């Protein structure tokens, strides 16, 4: 019989990393950020929503506690991806863990569902969070086929077919690659 001797009767584990999932979340944050930025250029209803937001409003999505983040700032009635280092965000949406963020960002979960399931929590003005949900609902219509959107939202926002396809092409060819 062999005894393995160790200094302590216990082991200590450092916090691990989930690099693969975090990388996908980062890419998804990038796509979402660019899509929001682009859609706020051409979608009239998104523009009306943004009108109600305070100027230079800073919104940050962050995976708790030290995961990837996405910062969006309102400028000239557009919501643009931006860096946030110097000031506290006006609204912080914390996603509670990497797994949940992965599901949310790969659209296995909807944004309302994330709050219902306590997967995300909000620091900031609820009115703006609701406006953001309405904006995201529209962006999903541009990005995804209807059957998928239906699983993510309570009611699919009405956007007529031609605007839907033009919007989709714009996001794919200009919005996501160039942010236009």
């Amino acid at each position, binding site marked *: 019989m062999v005894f393995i001797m160790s200094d302590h009767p216990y082991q200590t584990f450092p916090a691990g990393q989930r690099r693969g999932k975090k990388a996908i979340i980062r890419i998804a944050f990038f796509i979402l950020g660019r899509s929001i930025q682009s859609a706020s250029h051409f979608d009239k209803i998104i523009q009306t929503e943004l009108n109600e937001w305070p100027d230079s409003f800073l919104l940050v999505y962050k995976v708790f506690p030290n995961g990837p983040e996405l910062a969006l700032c309102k400028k000239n009635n557009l919501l643009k991806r931006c860096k946030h280092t110097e000031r506290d965000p006006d609204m912080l949406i914390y996603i509670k863990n990497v797994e949940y963020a992965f599901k949310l960002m790969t659209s296995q979960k909807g944004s*309302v569902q994330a*709050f*219902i*399931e*306590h*997967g995300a*929590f*909000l*620091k*900031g*003005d*609820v*009115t703006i*969070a*609701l*406006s953001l*949900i309405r904006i995201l609902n529209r962006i999903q219509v541009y990005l995804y086929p209807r059957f998928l959107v239906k699983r993510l*939202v*309570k*009611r699919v926002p009405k956007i007529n077919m031609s605007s839907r396809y033009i919007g989709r092409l714009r996001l794919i060819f200009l919005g996501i690659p160039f942010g236009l």
Partner: protein
Amino acid sequence: MIPSYFEFYNPVKILAGSNALDNLAYELMNLGAKSPLVVTDKGILKAGLLKVIKNAFSDTNIPFSLFDNIPQDSSDLIVKELSNVYRETNSDSLIALGGGSVIDTAKAVNILVTHESDNLFDFVGGDFLKKPLKPLIVVPTTSGTGSEATGVAVIKDSERNIKMGFSSQHLIPDVAILDPRMTLTLPPLLTAATGMDALTHALESSYCLQRNPVSSAFAYSAIQILSNHLVEVIKNPKDPQSRFALSIAAFLAGVGLSNSLAGIVHALGHATGGICGLPHGIAMNIFLPHGLRYNLGKVGDLIGELLLPLAGSEYFSEIPREERSKAAIQFIESLRDSLYHLVSLPRTLKEAQISKEDMNQIAKDAINDGAIAFNPEEVDFKDALNVLMMAYD
């Protein structure tokens, strides 16, 4: 129907029944508190309820301080003043004696005194408190808001004249004392309105999106007690047994609300309250059947199941499954009629003298109210306006 994921939290210790308040000193000792600050409003003092508190402290060696100036619509200014009183009196715990406004104020004071802060605005929003607060014991004198069971406080921003919401699990009181003596003097109209608020908490929390089997168990039990006792209390306000029943139901419904949140009825109620000052319970009474009807398409089956706690098993089994949701709504409507005949509790916006001109603004505010996110059916501006029109007359 079991959701794929849910959370539930309710750490409130309940002391319920006749003379429950007499255990106050013992509970303070359990919480390590030696000098509590009692906060209340002038109405409570007029009703003579302070005597019960004083008696509970006699022969205990526990001195207490009293602040009795909390208005109906408490604001950040009162909260600030009160936290200064807390510090000046070297208090180490809070006892809230009153209705929703008093309890919410005590919760907000607790945020400031625990964090040694003067600025309530730093804490607006959800899940922001990182440490447990000072001991808070709540003695409700109304039976409706359920604030004794929730981790939510609503306080007016006196400068911008809007309501600020605070929510955190740390805001949930440590102890709720449900003593029938404390609600005996609640006027019948107020009893009816707060009772309908409790019923709305129970109903909305059991069919809205954050429902789960644990909180629904609380809600069902609340619905059953309310439908058995609400009208009875209005007819016989001095009956301690049914007063006690309502207090328990309000607590149970508050637990449901705290864990599963509400929906369109609360969103419309908050908006109408904000714009026209319509009291919350009356708004709930007006909007409740319309909110149920609005959600029939998405959760008709669930609403149908609520007929059981509402109307009892005999009636429930007589009604075919597909007609139960409509029967549940009819049940609520006839309950409203009874309350209208007894105490003139308004059933429509017109009866509550709300002007049609305010409808657009109310609809706009309602779709921007947090509760709307948890409503099963999507609600846009037009939808909200339609429901308001139906609730008008």
